[in-house]
């Protein structure tokens, strides 16, 4: 109730959020999980301008991300890749178990493609580089919150290689 009032108030002020108050259940809720303060701030800035999207929490460690996800059941978790690989990418699987509706978008700094693919293979459905948050995060949030995936086209050949390795006869595996 309190939240809806607040959204309505800011909706009047900014105009762009007006429909949020009328259909509060359609707001895309977002948890930002990144140990880096500047990284979180960049996400908040990018999301503030979007209609129908709201940051509902921030986490700085893997464990905080897990408990916040269990508590808030956000639609989207923006997860720093370094947090996700802290436990061999199992963090993403844990987040998905804590909240089935939650979709994970990776935030990556300078990371090897194989680490990104590892995280995607554990259930992340988006990947945005930290340098391109302002440019691409809005697009990624819209895609992922409506059930699609969002990542660079350049990752696809690597994913196909991984799929091929899974389906190859056992003797072909290294």
């Amino acid at each position, binding site marked *: 109730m309190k939240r809806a009032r607040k959204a309505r108030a800011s909706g009047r002020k900014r105009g762009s959020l007006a429909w949020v108050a009328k259909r509060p259940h359609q707001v895309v809720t977002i948890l930002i999980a990144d140990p880096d303060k500047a990284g979180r701030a960049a996400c908040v800035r990018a999301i503030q301008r979007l209609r129908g999207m709201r940051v509902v929490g921030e986490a700085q*460690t*893997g*464990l*905080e991300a*897990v408990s916040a996800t269990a508590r808030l059941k956000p639609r989207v978790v923006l997860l720093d890749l370094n947090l996700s690989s*802290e*436990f*061999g990418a*199992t*963090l993403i699987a*844990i987040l998905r178990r804590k909240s089935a509706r939650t979709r994970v978008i990776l935030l990556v700094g300078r990371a090897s493609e194989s680490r990104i693919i590892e995280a*995607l*293979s*554990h*259930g*992340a*459905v988006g990947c945005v580089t930290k340098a391109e948050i302002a440019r691409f995060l809005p697009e990624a949030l819209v*895609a992922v919150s409506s*059930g*699609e*995936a*969002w*990542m660079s*086209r*350049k990752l*696809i*050949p690597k*994913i*196909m290689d*991984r*799929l091929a390795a*899974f*389906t190859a006869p056992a003797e072909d595996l290294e």
Partner: protein
Amino acid sequence: MSDKQRAASVVLLASPIAGLRGQWSQGLAEKFPVYEVAERSALERSMANLKPAALLLDLALPGLGGVDGVPAIQRLSPLTSVMLLTSTPNDREGLAALKSGARAYCSSETDSALLRKAVTVVLKGEIWVARNVYAPLLEELTSLTERRHKEFPPNLDTRLDRLTPREREIAQLIGGGASNKEIAGRLNITEATVKAHLTAIFRKLGLSDRLGLALFVTEYNRVAR
């Protein structure tokens, strides 16, 4: 791209519909040498003789047999990047297309500038596919990964085996959320000893803090159960 490379980048267009071939070649002809075929036997000959850099293949080509027919065409020229075009794109078929070895899957009505871009990126080794194929592609990746993990469980056990029985006991208590003081009281040892054990545990498991350890133990218990 140098002239020499451009000369090598022959593009073959295969569709029974002349209008479509014309549309495709419009955007491509200024950049690549383009050849056209209208039916399967001509396609087979051209693949074998021209060994084109890319083949734009209409899935409606008679005798092709849809996506399943792609590997047979590919074998005629293994280095050719096969790009599939269809008047009725859908994400499941897109995934099947990529798994058949195709390097692109898109609408046969893709506009000529975009099609030129598609051919260009495919010749650079990338894959061109509509964004709505990304989600089923990742679902496939995740489910195959999960299945693999069930068949060959990740070696959490061996990592935990590196710990002494006392260290394992302490790790489990951390997993339950206990503080150093509580652990000390419970095991009747000093807090300094608990800390020493923790340092050893972190080192052996390659973890950096107790939150990480708690999560590790939780996950371990779930898998082990």
